[in-house]
């Protein structure tokens, strides 16, 4: 469903600020795969997401979604294929517009926008039904401005909007990081529920190791622009935080040793 081949991305190439953000990334997700990504700050996780969604263009390599090479498609042209939720709860919705208007925009994502009304009677019924699945009572507040919602409510709505038209790929970049623990747990549960129900192919970045282990069928770890660990579905079933940390130390150690050998 999603295939990344030989992806390289260097920021400020040829200057003192040069930064290799992605270094020869290879990644393939099968339909229905739910992959969690962990890695230290600056590892290149967000850059990877931005390259898939078309916010950034790779220096080298190809991005393929559902058998289609999308390298030449701009962000808005890829958008029908991709659902996204950002870390900032403010980022995924339009605060000055109502809940139903926001949902109407999500509904139009994979259709041509015209001069039909965005919110119609039939659509409103559909919006209500899907809002009910969030269990937050938002279905009774269709005409409330989204700016009035709490961060958790907005993030739940963002998640619903991102998945409304069943995109080929769902990208979640630390989408629970800005919420307090109980709200984060709520969004985590909703994520599991929605992804399971629709069998969405999903990439989720998180700094919460437990969350990375609990969710999804595959886990990858990134460091300095590379994928340094790829835990397959079989191994992931028995994965614990301790084993993950131990594995990380081991890889770091090996790398350290090989760096020494090169420098030696």
């Amino acid at each position, binding site marked *: 469903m999603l295939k990344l081949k030989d992806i390289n991305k260097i920021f400020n190439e040829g200057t003192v600020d040069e930064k290799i953000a992605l270094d020869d990334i290879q990644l393939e997700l099968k339909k229905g795969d739910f992959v969690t990504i962990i890695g230290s700050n600056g590892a290149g996780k967000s850059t990877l997401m931005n390259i898939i969604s078309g916010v950034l263009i790779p220096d080298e390599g190809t991005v393929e979604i559902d058998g289609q090479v999308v390298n030449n498609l701009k962000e*808005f042209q890829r958008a029908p294929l991709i659902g996204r939720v950002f870390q900032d709860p403010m*980022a995924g*919705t339009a605060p000055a*517009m109502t809940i139903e*208007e926001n949902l109407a*925009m999500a509904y139009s994502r994979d259709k041509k926008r015209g*001069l039909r009304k*965005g919110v119609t009677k039939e659509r409103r019924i559909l919006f209500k039904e899907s809002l009910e699945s969030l269990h937050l009572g938002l279905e009774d507040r269709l005409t409330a401005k989204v700016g009035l919602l709490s961060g958790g409510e907005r993030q739940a709505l963002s998640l619903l*909007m991102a998945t409304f038209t069943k995109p080929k790929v769902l990208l979640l970049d630390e989408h629970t990081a800005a919420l307090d623990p109980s709200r984060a747990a709520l969004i985590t549960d909703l994520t599991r529920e929605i992804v399971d129900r629709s069998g969405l192919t999903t990439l989720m970045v998180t700094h919460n190791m437990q969350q990375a282990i609990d969710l999804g069928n595959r886990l990858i770890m990134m460091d300095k622009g590379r994928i340094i660990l790829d835990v397959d579905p079989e191994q992931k079933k028995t994965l614990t935080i301790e084993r993950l940390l131990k594995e990380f130390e081991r890889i770091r150690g090996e790398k350290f040793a090989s760096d020494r050998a090169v420098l030696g």
Partner: protein
Amino acid sequence: MGTALLGSLESGVIFAIMALGVYLTFRILDFPDLTVDGSFTTGGAVAAVLIVNGYSPFFGTIAAVIAGIIFGALTGILHTKGKINALLSGILSMIALYSINLRIMGKANIGLLGEDTLLTQVQTASSGLGESLSKYSIVLFVIVLVILIKLIVDRFLDTEVGLALRATGNNARMIRSFSTNTDNTIILGVALSNGLVALSGALMAQYQGFSDVSMGIGMIIIGLASVIIGEAIFGDRSIRRATLAVIGGAVIYRLVVALALRVGLSPSDMKLMTALIVIIALIAPMMINNWKDKKKKDARRKQSASEMKAHLEGGKNNA
């Protein structure tokens, strides 16, 4: 109704069409578009030239709207494709339009007295209704027109394209992730806005009986004043409410100007007065909020101080 009052009402309603255009860019798109000063004149120029050359006033007015749409689109293209800052794009268009407007008119001023205009046609058509009624024919005509435009704008902003346009001004990153080309929505919005502004200019030229190359100077500030005054007085909770407020704001602005002239200010003072109104309307809400905040904080501090005191005294009694 006094003639002076009626006159301000008529011109206020004509300006309201321009203010609705300014509302589209300034509020909906969050794009401070200064093309307005140029495109208002363009509207007047195109209509006047066509009318004096024997075309029907209706055709002249439609052509004016189309010219406004084209020049608005150019500003939008400068900003989105040329990556020029929004304010600067508008200023560039405005300056360029000054020359273009002179070219269109061929001279600095075209008189329309004695020509058939949309408004003289309305007067002729209503002359059978008796003098007391036909006196109000122009004001009724422009009111019906502005209400019609308001309803169309409201309806448009509810469509799928309209929602995308509003989201472009509200959260561009979000609507791009929902497959909208925000370059296109910006160009469309600025184009429609200047179409309305040019319509207002075309009507104003026909109303005052001439088109002048400087008739658009300061229009953007009058538009802003109308939007800000309207929202402050009538509220902006929904689009429907806000567009009505903008119309009200434009009329009130006009009445205030008429009043100021009557108490002895000179017409050349009007631009200064308008700028002052906008400055006050922009600053006042902020100052009022700060003042309220400070009062709340003071009250809280006073309370916690007295609690502290009570606590200390309580401690003393216990000892």
